[in-house]
């Protein structure tokens, strides 16, 4: 059925239409308006999962704040595993990018004076999170999408699914994709390719992510030999709804919401985050405004000790917003009120919201340098699919929306620069042979006589990841999950599709996504297994491994794909040139401010 492969050609190809993809497409076209920029996405851009980000985007804004403080919070939040040069660049460019969004029309929430309003966020020493009510990602995404319509040089391939990259001799020449509506195959030649495909949270059972967040770009680059960095660091957001995992924003706590266990006790004070603050008077980096890793870990301990609350859809604790009052909640958290009512039948004005941790974000991703370049010439990665080195072992809330903008611009500019230079042309024979190879998995799926079904395999993958590679991990649990993944990979070879049609064959797409997910999940587990310490979002239960061990593990993990066997893990030094490793402290134990440094 794959006799005809259409061909297209462009200068810069952006894969993924979320915040990072759109920002880089605009940056590429602004860097060189003569270039043809193509934005390809498996969904219409405004469906991308950036849309679901709620709380806000961080940038130093207030007179009493400083770049040094944002840098320090991010580095401490990362448990010293962030690349400090990258963090330094990020904090310096954050404000300008949020202003750029404002100039493009983003409806940021305002103070009475007309100045932009900022709110508190977890792990941040000062209020610096810009927001658009509690739909910040939605407004950023739509602002970027609508702005992109201004540029005739940006053409879109909506609802195209990338099957593989065209890579030869460490050089990327484009991609092979499937037009979802027709099932037609298309080879797209490009001078540079930017992967902006988002995270991989759907490899877990309980997650805040949309169905499309399946690790596609990570697996594509990984299979071609690019390292996935720091994949063991998977963020559990402390407040998801039971059952669905739907995100209840951290802004609830930034605005003064409190967390209660079954005794109505604010348990976070028992986990190094106290002293207790009066309800409705939140203090930065204290209690409910601790970082996400510590809050999710505190839930786990409460559950172990039987202090969580039974809910028809599992164990929960309560997020109480009642003391904030109806008027304030409708102004600052209208979407949360809507979600709580629709999905757990709770009116936050009158009752606490049941919540539990849910997988939210992959700190790790495709290894890039500070210019978002991968180890393959012409291939870039940006946003959640990438690891430029900003988040280390734990991301602070509201740093990732800003990341999409700051590094989206860098990726677009760099990809445009490379596309503007002369570059080696691939022969048609080479491209067609690469395309032929890229179609192998598709042919196997279509011709399979097996009996396995994607849905059952996907379910086992998600359950197994939750079980063995969750908030707390152990060697035995990780080995068990790795062995399950290995079996699932065998079963995957026997996958059979019930839908043999070409048009909108979503079963085929789910099967391909499952293949990507299995590879990404394995990288997560293998890195988690070999990181024999506890740092940030990666916590080991075995005696001797429950503490951070800088001597052996103040290093990034790099997972390399191995055909037919488990990922190979290498270790990479961390840039700690600006802030030497120290203990993370929150609540009443916070360290005094660092003296300002030259670099910030």
């Amino acid at each position, binding site marked *: 059925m794959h006799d005809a492969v259409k061909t297209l050609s462009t200068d810069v190809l952006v894969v993924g239409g979320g915040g990072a993809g759109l920002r880089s497409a605009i940056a590429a076209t602004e860097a060189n308006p003569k270039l043809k920029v193509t934005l390809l996405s498996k969904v219409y851009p405004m469906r991308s999962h950036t*849309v679901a980000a709620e709380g806000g985007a961080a940038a130093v804004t207030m007179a009493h704040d400083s770049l040094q403080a944002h840098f320090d919070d991010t580095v401490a939040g990362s448990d010293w595993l962030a690349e400090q040069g990258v963090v330094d660049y990020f904090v310096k460019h954050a404000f300008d990018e949020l*202003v750029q969004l404002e100039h493009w029309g983003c409806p940021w929430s305002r103070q009475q004076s007309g100045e932009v309003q900022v709110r508190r966020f977890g792990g941040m020493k000062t209020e610096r999170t810009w927001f658009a009510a509690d739909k910040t990602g939605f407004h950023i995404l739509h602002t970027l999408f609508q702005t992109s319509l201004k540029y005739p040089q940006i053409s879109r391939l909506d609802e195209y699914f990338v099957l593989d990259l065209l890579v030869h001799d460490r050089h990327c020449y484009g991609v092979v994709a499937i037009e979802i509506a027709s099932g037609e195959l298309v080879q797209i030649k490009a001078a540079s390719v930017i992967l902006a495909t988002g995270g991989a949270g759907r490899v877990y059972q309980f997650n805040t992510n949309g169905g499309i967040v399946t690790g596609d770009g990570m697996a594509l680059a990984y299979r071609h030999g690019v390292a996935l960095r720091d994949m063991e660091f998977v963020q559990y957001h402390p407040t998801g709804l039971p059952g669905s995992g739907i995100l209840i924003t951290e802004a609830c706590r930034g605005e003064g919401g409190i967390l209660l266990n079954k005794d109505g006790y604010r348990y976070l004070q028992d986990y190094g985050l106290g002293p207790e603050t009066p309800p409705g008077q939140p203090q930065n980096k204290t209690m409910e405004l601790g970082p996400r890793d510590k809050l999710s870990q505190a839930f786990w301990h409460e559950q172990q000790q039987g202090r969580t609350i039974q809910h028809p859809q599992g164990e929960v604790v309560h997020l109480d917003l009642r003391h904030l009052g109806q008027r304030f909640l409708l102004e600052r958290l209208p979407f949360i009120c809507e979600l709580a009512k629709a999905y757990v039948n709770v009116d936050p004005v009158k009752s606490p919201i049941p919540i539990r941790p849910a997988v939210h974000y992959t700190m790790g991703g495709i290894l890039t340098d500070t210019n978002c370049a991968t180890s393959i010439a012409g291939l870039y990665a940006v946003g959640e699919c990438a690891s430029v080195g900003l988040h280390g072992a734990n991301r602070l809330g509201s740093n990732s929306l800003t990341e999409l903008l700051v590094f989206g611009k860098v990726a677009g500019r760099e990809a445009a620069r490379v596309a503007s230079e002369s570059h080696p042309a691939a022969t048609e024979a080479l491209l067609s042979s690469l395309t032929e190879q890229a179609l192998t998995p598709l042919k196997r799926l279509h011709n399979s006589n097996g009996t396995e079904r994607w849905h059952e395999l996907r379910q086992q993958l998600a359950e197994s990841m939750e079980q063995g590679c969750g908030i707390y991990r152990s060697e035995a649990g990780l080995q068990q999950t790795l062995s399950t993944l290995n079996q699932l990979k065998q079963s995957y070879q026997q996958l059979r599709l019930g839908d043999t049609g070409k048009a909108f064959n979503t079963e085929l797409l789910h099967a391909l996504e499952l293949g990507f997910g299995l590879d990404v999940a394995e990288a997560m587990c293998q890195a988690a297994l070999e990181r024999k310490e506890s740092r940030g979002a990666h916590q080991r239960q075995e005696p001797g491994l429950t503490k951070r061990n800088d001597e052996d593990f103040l290093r990034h993990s790099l997972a390399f794909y191995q055909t037919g066997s488990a990922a190979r893990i290498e270790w990479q030094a961390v840039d700690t040139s600006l802030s030497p490793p120290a203990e993370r402290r929150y609540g009443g134990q916070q360290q005094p401010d660092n003296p300002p440094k030259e670099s910030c």
Partner: protein
Amino acid sequence: MPTLEMRLQRYRPEQDSAPHWQDFRVEYDDSTSVLDALEQIKAEQDSSLSYRWSCRMAICGSCGIMVNGVPKLGCKTFLRDYPKGLQLAPLGNFPVEKDLIVDMSRFLEHLTAIKPYLIAEAAPQGQPHRQTPAQLARYKQFSNCINCGLCYAACPQFGLKPDFLGPAAIALAHRYNLDSRDSGKAERMAQLNSDNGVWGCTFVGYCSTVCPKGVDPAAAVNQGKIASTLDGVIQWFKPAKEPRNKEQSK
């Protein structure tokens, strides 16, 4: 677990000459959404069923469908509210591509046509504009559109005349026209004043009833008619080259 009868419209372009109905029975509880039920069918009964979805939380706008003839988001519609069963069909007024998936390209063309981006004179260098909460409140509601297309499925005019810009596109044009930072109204009025613009609307108002986000596109269209009338009157008295929307942009 109780079960419920669901009747789905099926259409596979490669084998069906026309859409037809197929019955399924699904298990459900208090929390089961229409989207959950579709996932259940695809996983356990018929893997060839196709529908769009992603976020599961009524913000990505993917999963618009007709539920018993009414445009709804599948993820925010619950089986508990339909004890007598449900009938699901693709969004009305759009061409069907496969099963519950429709062709949204006309919608996107309309969205693009109204220049949905800030057209502004020089912005303050390196600093945000000032915009008071009152100025924000003028347009905020119209910026909450998730592009789900439910209002187009509800619009009899769009059904009759697909060239009609339609509720969401007009609401979005209105959103930018009302933004204190924008001075592009004159550029948008050409579209809004045309036969396919605000005057195409016969004010049925059903678009606002079905909107899952309270955007109230009917109000935008109606306010657009007032703006369009004023625009016509002002044009009548003013030299053509002068920007016509200064007073609104302050």
